[in-house]
């Protein structure tokens, strides 16, 4: 069974809602509290990028109960914002265009097991990450 929860992201309050949603799904899938914290933190960073760069978008949280009894959680951060001009550069530590610390994407990548990004100029950005149960 695959269940997906969509959280619209428009303000910093939605960031809080999104990470609480992630934490409760992770807890329901019996991730450890430590893993749930990593998942909630990844959501927080992804949702914040949406608010900062695209103004609005959504976070989708999906429980993965795939084959070989592997359990995981998939997070999709989607927006139709300005897109990222140079994805390679954005994935490098220390890079940021908004005057922030620039740890966003490389940091998120370290929190999860699988990381995928698609971005197109003026069309938007979709970041898909997966964390498997340890």
């Amino acid at each position, binding site marked *: 069974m695959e269940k997906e929860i969509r959280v619209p992201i428009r303000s*910093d309050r939605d960031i809080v809602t999104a990470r609480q949603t992630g*934490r409760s799904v992770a807890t329901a899938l019996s991730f450890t509290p*430590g893993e749930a*914290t990593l998942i909630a933190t990844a959501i*927080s960073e992804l949702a914040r990028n949406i608010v900062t760069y695209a103004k609005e978008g959504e976070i989708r949280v999906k429980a993965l109960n795939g084959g070989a009894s592997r359990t995981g959680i998939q997070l999709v951060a989607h927006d139709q914002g300005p897109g990222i001009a140079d994805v390679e550069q954005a994935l490098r530590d220390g890079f940021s265009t908004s005057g922030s610390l620039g740890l966003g994407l490389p940091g998120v990548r*370290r*929190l999860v097991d699988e990381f995928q990004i698609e971005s197109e100029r003026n069309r938007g950005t979709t970041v898909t990450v997966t964390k498997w149960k340890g």
Partner: protein
Amino acid sequence: MRDAVEIPVLRQGSVLIATLRPAVPDVDLVRLRTALVEEVVRMRSRGVIVDVTAIDVMDSFASRTLQELAQMIRLRGAETVIVGIQPDVAFAMVQLGLRMEDVATALDLEEGMAYLNRKFQTSG
């Protein structure tokens, strides 16, 4: 303090203590930063403790805001200590690459208070 700020700030001697509630939105953190700096000036406080025990996610924004808070307060000649970062939160922060450089941290409120008292003694 004032009702605009939803984060309670207590005063104990020359130290201000702010206790963050769980799931505090960014605006409240930014408001707290501004309010604490003002309050340090108004009360002539020498130390500030920010208790983050209830915080279950410390992302780059929250961490940067607390760092800025500490820097602003230092410019006023007062010291800031962040207390109560939970083990899981600390783990996630390190994974994310957040370092909280140049900000004093302590285990809990009591340790934070002890740290500030030592600082006050050495600075006279």
